């Protein structure tokens, strides 16, 4: 890694949004390949952030500021990336299930997936099964990721999977679930394709499902 990609990497890991913006601009001005900036500076940095979160060194605030720094860099980088450069890891339709407005977990998963090179379609919170179905149909082949914080709303994960079934889409989409009351066991019970206990592990899970 050369010094400027290292600075971008460090800026993201340390959550320094202005530094990342400045260094990405400098890198672009110097003629550096946007793909190199993206892969070596940014995606690698978010992987490190995920690792630090998993091992208990980073917590939610550190992840939030790292993701913010990444997004600053990404906004500058995107106009310079060709469609073919992007080589998206895949698309993820993500949302908090119907009746549930809690979004911090869903947002962190979205940020980490974006940082790993996935394209995110964020449906927000209180997302009905029909909305998930429509989005899954529109974004053909996307993963569907659902979040719930409450035991009273968690059953809507099952309802959504049934709706995907009824729409004939279940064979085409993989479903990921997560959230405080959700367990591996529950994921199996409702025939989800995977469960992750946190945002960092959701990335590994999504990678294994595409």
């Amino acid at each position: 890694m050369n010094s400027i990609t290292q600075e971008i990497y460090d800026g993201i890991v340390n959550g320094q949004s202005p530094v990342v913006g400045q260094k990405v601009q400098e890198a672009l001005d110097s003629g550096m390949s946007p793909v190199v900036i993206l892969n070596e500076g940014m995606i690698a940095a978010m992987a490190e952030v995920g690792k630090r979160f998993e091992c208990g060194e980073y917590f939610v605030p550190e992840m939030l500021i790292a993701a913010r720094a990444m997004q600053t860099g990404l906004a500058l980088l995107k106009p310079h990336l060709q469609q073919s450069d992007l080589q998206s890891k895949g698309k993820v339709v993500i949302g908090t299930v119907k009746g549930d407005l809690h979004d911090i977990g869903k947002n962190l998963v979205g940020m980490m997936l974006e940082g790993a090179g996935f394209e995110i379609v964020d449906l927000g919170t209180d997302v009905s099964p029909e909305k998930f179905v429509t989005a899954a149909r529109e974004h053909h082949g996307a993963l569907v990721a659902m979040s719930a914080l409450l035991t009273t709303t968690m059953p809507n994960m099952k309802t959504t999977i049934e709706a995907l079934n009824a729409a004939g889409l279940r064979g085409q989409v993989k479903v990921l679930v997560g959230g405080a009351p959700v367990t591996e066991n529950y994921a199996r019970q409702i025939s989800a394709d995977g469960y992750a206990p946190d945002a960092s592990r959701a990335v590994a899970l999504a990678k294994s499902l595409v």
Partner: protein
Amino acid sequence: MNHRERVLTALHHESPDRCPMQVSFTPEFAERLRADLRLKGTALHNPHGGGNTYDLERALQEDMLLTSVGWANSYYQEPLTYTDEWGIGWKSIEYNTPFGPGRYTEIASHPLADIQAIETYTPPDPARPELYIEAERVVREYKDEFWIVGVTVTTVFECAWALRGYERLMTDMALDPDLANRIMEFPFQFHLAAARRLVELGVDMIWIGDDVGAQNAMLISPSMWRNYFKPRMATFISELKGINPLIKVAYHSDGNIYPIIPDLIEIGLDVLNPIQPACMDPARLKREFGDRLCFWGSIDEQYTLPFGTPQSVRGEVLERLQTFGKNGGLILGPTHHVQLDTPLENFWAMVNTITRTPYLSDS
């Protein structure tokens, strides 16, 4: 042994006749329970205690009664949308359970979302006498018989993030500590003044705290908690004990907060709540901290109560009594307000096992 003596004995790390119990419910579950008990009463139930009639608590033979002053009372208001006295906007969201629909009140807007607003922001005044009318009544009518808890939860962090926005406040905490501290002072000063007044009025325990734990780890780092919250909680505890040295202080945080338990003990905490068993192992906490700390809660609301069976609920209560509650030091109850998805059979299995199991029984 009356309710009050039962709690006091347990908090002295001694075994009462049976384990003390405290249970709260969402308004919808309270309504269902009221019908099951054939109790009259139509007032909207406030699970934190504010405006509560205490008829359900007394019918269940609960040992503690809660009376609340502060931002936590903004939850579960009647209108579908409202703005509370802090300027925080709320909306309702419906959910469905096998036992019918319910609604949660959720935060919809934040008066300090824009940094500039902080310059002109005035928090509510905690010195208004009308805030304490209910507490005065509860102490007057029930203190001889029950353990009275003054509730000032959502003490700093939760009210501060409602003022500023969740992700915004956590970003401030990482990048702009001065700003984060300025915002936190609003709820801290309000709730401290309220708690002081509640202690002066004669409550037995003050319940403080904020959710700083997630399911598997803390939301914020232990060092960030030590930086922002430990000094404030230490001030809280020492000021309250300065008014009444016998006052007990309980601290609430959902989730896993294992790393900061020694800090809480160090600043003089008496009781930790709610101990979600899926997040922290109660038996381990008892082994490591049980000689210096009492516990309150611990009956699982994420699986056992809503999705378990009466047998599994009974089993969990008995297991807690034998481990977590060994030699006292425990007030049993659900980790959160009992939710509408809980079968009444499970609820009664919890209540009846707690109230009908003599403490020294081998069962």
